[in-house]
């Protein structure tokens, strides 16, 4: 079918699957926009515990930003047919992604230990729920990365339009969950 679309829509500037991923990201963004709006509305109603976000979340933010960079570099290497660089960077990205989960988990533990365990106050609960829900979406990205790894090491190296598009889909989604976290991090840090 992929081939069909390629030729059917050869006149288009953007591949329909890529466009579809953008639309899907817009939809997911609405989910988080509404959660942060709910946060604002709930906060205005009072009974709101103020606290500092644990510093470990800064680290996880740095890690996920870095993973976006490495994945992008891997994509560029793939396009330039630098096989070794492409594979190495892909593995680095994968490890950074796992590191992100580790840091997020430590962040939740640190938050609970700092006196804001789950269900103590909506202000803390929002942080937990929003970051958990975000993590769920990163798992989706991790699944895509896993597929990318299987493609990288299971198939013989060859740059084809189909594989380039596939890689771009993964890349787009990964950048999306990355910048989504940056937004959430900034929001949760400054809107207390």
């Amino acid at each position, binding site marked *: *079918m992929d*081939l*069909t*679309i390629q*030729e*059917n*829509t*050869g*006149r*288009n500037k*953007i591949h*329909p*699957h890529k*466009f*579809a991923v953008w*639309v*899907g990201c*817009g*939809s*997911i963004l*609405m*989910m*988080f926009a*509404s*959660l942060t709006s*709910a946060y604002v*509305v*709930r906060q205005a*109603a*009072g*009974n709101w515990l103020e606290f500092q976000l644990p510093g470990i979340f800064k680290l996880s933010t740095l890690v996920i930003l870095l993973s976006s960079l490495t994945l992008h570099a891997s994509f560029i290497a793939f396009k330039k047919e630098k096989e070794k660089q492409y594979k190495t960077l892909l593995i680095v990205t994968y490890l950074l992604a796992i590191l992100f989960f580790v840091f997020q988990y430590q962040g939740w533990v640190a938050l609970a230990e700092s006196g804001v365990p*789950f*269900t103590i106050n*909506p202000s803390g*609960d*929002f942080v937990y*729920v929003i970051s958990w*829900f975000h993590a769920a979406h990163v798992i989706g990205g991790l699944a895509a990365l896993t597929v990318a790894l299987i493609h990288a090491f299971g198939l013989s190296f060859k740059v084809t339009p189909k594989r380039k598009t596939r890689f771009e889909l993964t890349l787009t989604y990964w950048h999306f969950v990355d910048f989504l976290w940056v937004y959430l991090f900034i929001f949760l840090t400054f809107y207390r």
Partner: protein
Amino acid sequence: MANATTVTLDRDDKLIEELGFDDHFHEHEHGDKYKSNFITKYIFSMDHKIIARQFLITGMIWALIGAGMSLIFRLQLGFPEESLAWLRPLLGKWIEVNADTGIGTLAPEFYYALVTMHGTIIVFFVLTAGLSGTFSNLLIPLQLGARDMASPLLNMLSYWFFFLASVIMFYSLFLSTGPFSGGWVAYPPLSALPQASDGSGTGMTLWILSLVFFVISVGLGGINYITTVLNMRTKGMSMWRMPLTIWAFFVTAILALLSFPVLVSGFLLLMFDRGMGTSFYLSEIFIGGQALDHVGGSPILYQHLFWFLGHPEVYIIILPAMGLTSEVLAIHCRKPIFGYKAMVYSILAIGFLSFIVWAHHMFMSGVNPFIANFFVIFTLIIAVPSAVKVFNWITTIYKSNVRYNAASMFAIGFVSMFISGGLTGIFLGNSAIDIQMHDTYFVVAHFHIVMGVAAFFGMFAGVYHWFPKMFGRFMNETIGKMHFWGTLIGAYAIFWPMHYLGMAGVPRRYYRFDNFDTFSHFSEMNKFITIAAIVTFGFQLLMVVNFFYSIWKGKKVTSKNPWGATTLEWTTPIAPGHGNWPGKLPTVNRWAYDYGKNGEEFISQVEPMREGETEDH
């Protein structure tokens, strides 16, 4: 005439061959997945035409269940004294039979479950999935000149997520504690506390699970619709040449993708309140003298999140019906749709405004009256694009040579219903009048006419009109017309009297009224409404019989373009195979509404512009 038609049809084929766009589609072997066995062809199909039919038939089954439920609670409202013991074989323990008198009464908690399920099923499963799912899938690729949707796989998943949602919801009907019974809006605390009522336990858990799968289905469908419309149009099909159906489906999909995720967020917080002990929505509550742990939550927050979906949702329901009506009216009036661009801008305006009016559902929940003013103004402004559309439909019908068949009559009926129901919306949109009208039968009458019955009329118009494209046969016209008159008169008989009930203050969702002196004189009116509902339901059964009979035994379609329409779906073979067009893709040279131009009855979109001819809009 028959001769002339054949000539023009051959001409379409020739034009596609000459001017068409060769995408080399048929030079590739598409493998087994599209043509081989029964399962891949009819069940796990990725072909948009099969998926459309799957949505339609699933939607019809749900419509019968949902409407059947309304009959049961109408029996309770119309005849509260009569014995319902005869329903025991169907409803089992929900009919409580008095051992001494033998009189069976409907269990009050099941009454609420019926009302809740009726709303949920009709709003989501029938008028969202059954209507938009069916016609977006069928018409977007066909009318745009595409081989299929942008992603046939996601499209298939969209249906199967809907199916999964259906199975879960259906299963919840048979729980010993009953399905969810807290109203289709699922406000906390009824939805958030499992101990609040019988249906709030497992029933609510399954309800929320089902709807999450449903939202996934809508999301996957919507991504496909938007992507296909923006990226897969054939050569020459500019946005301004798209039929109004496509415009409507397109804006509908945008609304769905922006609003349904917000519902999921609302549900997410609700699930945490239900299962994990958070207090997003739950404030200090005592149950049986015991204080719960929850502190300081805001049930209004849920209402905001719910109605941020809930209001666009009514346009998700009505916009496809509007699109179908526009198209069917133009074709059967043999006239270009009046004010094509105004129609498009109205669809866009309605879509935009639908996002800034949600709190008009919450005037009585204690929102700030000054904020309410904002929502009143934008609510009333929606009347403007709606009125533009109504004006254009009427002007299209005016002085036209209407072909009165089931499709066009339902389209005209849609306009009638939309006017009747739309006008009462202007009453309800005013926060001051809403103080009296809120939660009365006036509201029930308003939304049933404007988005229930009207949307069904649009859907029926679509089904009768595109049945030949879906099944290669016609539905029976005589039964179709009987269905129309029965439904039109029946629907007004059911819902018109409800306005009077509502103005007198009769509240909705009550189990019985005969204990209230104030409302006792309405008992005859309630009987009348119940009888009208039963009769109208009978006419729908007629339609269902007609539908299934016609699939196998209906009059066969003999020419490719039986209605004499201009749009691309009628240039495909009578039974289009995978890829829709056997050879090249058609290219488009004109807009979709060249009817009665230059003395020709209709000019297909594939026809090149004549010398000196200008585009009409």
